[in-house]
Each structure stands twice: as structure tokens, then as C-alpha cells.
């Protein structure tokens, strides 16, 4: 098949534009959530006992007494240039906080993915080779059950086992100042494990279905019939095709992951984006909250574009179709 470069470009441009449109709608939702939902922002921040004049003054100072459209434009036009507004709590620009927190969260999420992707694929392929047997059914059920247990529950169990009883791993992610990356990884293993447990079932399920389909396909039968060894067939024909859907699911998990981070980062005292959103929600620091939430949305949008790119690079059919 001839590789049509303009078709590739058009496909990717379309996906990128769609993501941008989604992000634009998201920014409106986030903005309305932070500005409109509280009703009176000053009242929500200062509390029911605050003086009416103080509330009015606060609203004027932070600019929420202006028309909504003006506020939205002001907010989003600065946001895309990197100025995310001023925190109510810290009276300082929000962007540096969000940036530092995002880096921390990406470290944690990165470690979780490094652990869960190979484990999940291995589990899925293992189950696919035993399809219909008890061990297949047991693994699927186990993965599914682990996937529905809230992260704080698995965290508690993991802390008890590895932190309290075995004393193998530190119970908080708060590593000493200036720790090297190896120490950082050591402190991050325990917080990343609940994410691994939640996602294992998803990755394994997709890899399992992909492998079963690839094992069933005509090209696999042909490969076996033409005399390739089983390991060659697995590597060249089965695994390569089974991995495609797995990549897409991993990218979509990235968005979901941030929800788990809220709980896990709070529990393990880790200064990531989840803990930032949580603290901002507690303190009713709406500029910080909006910036954190929209950043999570942007990371998700970026991840899905990257997943499209990766799928396109791996799958010739996608390069011209769609």
C-alpha cells in the first residue's frame, strides 16, 4: 500500500482540531464551574459571617463583579499565554504552583505506567493463551475486581503490608530535600501501586481481547502454516496487532488517572496536581482550582492526540483511512 502523506497529515490535523474544540468547551465548563456555581464568589470565600462591604470589595478586587463574557475572555486569553491568574490563598500567580505540581504528578504517573503497561500486557497475553480455562477466568475476574476498588482502600492495604508490617517502603512520598532520582523512585513505589492495581485489569482486558482476535485471524493461521515457530508468530503477528488497542486504552487511562491522583497524593502527602486541586477545593481558591482542572483536561487532550499519532505510526490502515 502506498503511504499517502497528505492523508496522514489531514487525519492528524482533524484529530488535533477536534481536541482543541473539546478543550474550548471544557474551558467554558470549568469557568462556569468556578465563577457561576458558587453564586457569590466573595461570600463563598469569606464565609457567611463576613461583612457585606468586605464581600463586595473582594468581588471587585478579584474582578468577579464584571460581566461574565468579559471575565471569561480575560481569563482564557491570559491562560493560553501561560498566565493562569492569581491565587486567592497565596496572593501570587497560580502558574508556578501548577507547573511544579504537574511535574511531580507526571513522575508518579510515569512510574505507574512503567509498571502497569508491561504487567497488564503480560497478564492479558497469558490469559489469552489460556482462554476459557479457569486461570483465564480467574485473572479476568481479579483484574476487574481490583479495578473497581477505590484507590484509598488499596492504598491502605498496601501501606499496611509494605510500610507497616514488612517495613520495605516509606509510607509517605515526602522524600528528603535534594534526594537523587533513585531515592525518589523508592519513595514513589508505594503511591504508584494503587494506580497499578486499578489499571492492571483494564490494560490486561484490552491486551487479552486483542491477542485473542489476533490469534484467531487468518494471517496468524497462514504464519503458522508456512512454518514459523510459535514464538516468531507471537512476536511478529500476534503481539504487534494486539498492542494497538492497548495503546489507545492506556492514553484514555491517563485522563482517568488524575482522578485517582487526587486521593493518592492527598493520602501520601505528595505535592502533585491532584493534591493541588484538592487543596484549592478545600480553600475555595477558585483561580487555582480552575487552572488545575483545565490543566488536567489539557494533558488528557494532549495524550489522546499522542495516542492517535502513535496508532497512526504503528497501523498502516489508520494512516490512510478514517
Amino acid at each position: 500500500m502506498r503511504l499517502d502523506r497528505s492523508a496522514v497529515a489531514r487525519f492528524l490535523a482533524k484529530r488535533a482540531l477536534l481536541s482543541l474544540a473539546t478543550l474550548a468547551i471544557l474551558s467554558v465548563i470549568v469557568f462556569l464551574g468556578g465563577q457561576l456555581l458558587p453564586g457569590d464568589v466573595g461570600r463563598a470565600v469569606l464565609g457567611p459571617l463576613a461583612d457585606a462591604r468586605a464581600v463586595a470589595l473582594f468581588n471587585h478586587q478579584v474582578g468577579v463583579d464584571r460581566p461574565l463574557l468579559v471575565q471569561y475572555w480575560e481569563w482564557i486569553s491570559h491562560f493560553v499565554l501561560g498566565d493562569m491568574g492569581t491565587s486567592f490563598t497565596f496572593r501570587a500567580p497560580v502558574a508556578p504552583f501548577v507547573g511544579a505540581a504537574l511535574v511531580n504528578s507526571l513522575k508518579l504517573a510515569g512510574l505507574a505506567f512503567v509498571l502497569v503497561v508491561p504487567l497488564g500486557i503480560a497478564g492479558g497475553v497469558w490469559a489469552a493463551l489460556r482462554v476459557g480455562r479457569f486461570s483465564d477466568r480467574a485473572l479476568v475476574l481479579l483484574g476487574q475486581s481490583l479495578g473497581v476498588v477505590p484507590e484509598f482502600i488499596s492504598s491502605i492495604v498496601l501501606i499496611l503490608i509494605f510500610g507497616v508490617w514488612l517495613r520495605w517502603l516509606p509510607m509517605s512520598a515526602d522524600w528528603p530535600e535534594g534526594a537523587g532520582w533513585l531515592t525518589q523512585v523508592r519513595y514513589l513505589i508505594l503511591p504508584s501501586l494503587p494506580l497499578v492495581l486499578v489499571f492492571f485489569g483494564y490494560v490486561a482486558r484490552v491486551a487479552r481481547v486483542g491477542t485473542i482476535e489476533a490469534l484467531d485471524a487468518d494471517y496468524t493461521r497462514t504464519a503458522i502454516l508456512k512454518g514459523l515457530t510459535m514464538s516468531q508468530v507471537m512476536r511478529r503477528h500476534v503481539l504487534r496487532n494486539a498492542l494497538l488497542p492497548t495503546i489507545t486504552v492506556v492514553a484514555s487511562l491517563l485522563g482517568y488517572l488524575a482522578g485517582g491522583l487526587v486521593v493518592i497524593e492527598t493520602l501520601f502527602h505528595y505535592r502533585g496536581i491532584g493534591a493541588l486541586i484538592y487543596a484549592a477545593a478545600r480553600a475555595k481558591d477558585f483561580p487555582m482550582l480552575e487552572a488545575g482542572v483545565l490543566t488536567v483536561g489539557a494533558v488528557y487532550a494532549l495524550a489522546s492526540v499522542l495516542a492517535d499519532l502513535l496508532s497512526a505510526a504503528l497501523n498502516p490502515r489508520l494512516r490512510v483511512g478514517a
Partner: protein
Amino acid sequence: MSEGTAAPRSLARERWRVALRSATLLTGLAILGFWVVCALFGARIAPQDPYADNLLATLAPPSAAHLFGTDQLGRDILSRVIIGARDILIVAPLATLLGTVLGTSLGLAIGYLRGPLDDLVSRVIEAVQALPLVIVALMALAAVGTSNDTVVLVIGFVFTPLIARTVRSAVLVESDLDYVPAARLRGDGALAIMFIEILPNVLPIVAVEMTVRLGYAIFFVASLSFIGFGIQPPSADWGIAIAENYSLIGSYWWTVVFDAGATASLVIGVNLVTDGLASVFET
């Protein structure tokens, strides 16, 4: 599949037969049923008063007197775990019900009417899905304040677009079948076609979707309660109990382990029911 030839009554009987044989479904129902009984009759089942302090017996390890030990205020943990099923089993199903009713209506409307409304709503649904539900809920609850009522409303509204999406795609399939144009030719109004003609045919999908959502709702209510944005003290809710005690985990494991186990068993039980139901409806 033999579905096409089977008469409706024997299909229903076949489904019952599969349901009664499904170990997954029955195990799930047993677990769920256990906690529902605890939620309904907890006050009578609990061996001791779950709210009574006993400052002479604080943080006592499990013993014959207190099978699950006592907490920081000397309250009997077994009794609190039993009564703790109550609030989550009120809030999560109500939120699911709200989301299902709203989502099914919205899904029927956009799936049947299509047009620009469908495009717009579908885009908004996609945008909402770019955010984890916990974060959407956190943001909304920070804005409107936390109480059992607002948790129900927020989770219900967050579920609405997700359920609408599932119902919409089922409605799209149904709209192509002969009975829908037939009803239209007969002169039935859009509302009548949506709710009288199409709805009964998508109900199995709605039912499965609802149990899936119930599992998620329990997951969210538990997580939100744990971080202080869900059910509020003095409820004996499991998430709250774990939040209050997890700093003691190093020396007093029993103050969190039983609540954690209860939460895990409930979500896994609901998940087993979902799984079992899905296979029954596939029959």
C-alpha cells in the same frame, strides 16, 4: 443466536435460568444483599451502640468483647461497620437513579431527534469525559458546598451525559427498525414514540448501564467521603472512618482494616452483579 426464533416468554424464562445458574450474579447479589440488610436493620443487628463513647476502652484491639476492636473514642468498630453501610447505600443509589432518569431522557431525545442539538450535546459530553469524575465532582462540591443532597445532585448530573451517550447509541439502532417509522406514519408524537415505543426496547441496556453506574457511584461516594467532600460526620460511614483513623495505621490497624474490607466487598459485590446481569441480558 437463537433469540430471533424464541417467543418472548421463553426468552424471559431462559434468562431466569441463566441468572439462577450464574455464580457471579448470585455471589454479587449475596454480598449486596448482606450490606442492604445491614443498612436497613443495622441499628438492630449491631451488638453495641455504634455511637456510644467509652473513654476507658479506647483503641482496644479485637477481642471477645469487641470482635473488631474499638476506635479512638472507644466505640465498637463492628457495630460501626454494620451501621456504616447505611449512608453510602442511600446516597449512591439515589445519585444513580437521578443520573439514569435524566440521562435516559436526554439520550432518547438526542438519539431520536438528532440534528444540531445532538451535535452540541455530544460535544459537551466529550468535553466532560476529558475530566475524571472525581475532579468534576470536587469542583462542583467546592462551589455549592457539601451535603448528602449536593453529593446526590452532583454525581447524578455528572452521570447524566455518560448515561445519555450509552442510551443515545442504543436509540440510534432502534430508530432504524421498522416499528419506529410505522409509529410515525400512524401519527404518534415524538414524545410518545420516544417513551412508549423506543424506551421499552432499550430498557435492558439502561438496566445494565444503571448497575455499572451504581458501582461507580459507590466508588465515588466512598472516595469523596474519604477526602471530606462526601458524606459528613457524625455518620459512621466507612470512608470517613478510614480518613479519621489512617494516621493511626502504624499501631492500630484494626481501626481501618475492617472499614476498608467492607468498602472493597461492597464495590466488588456490585461489580459481580453488573457482570452477571450483562451476561444474562446477552442470552
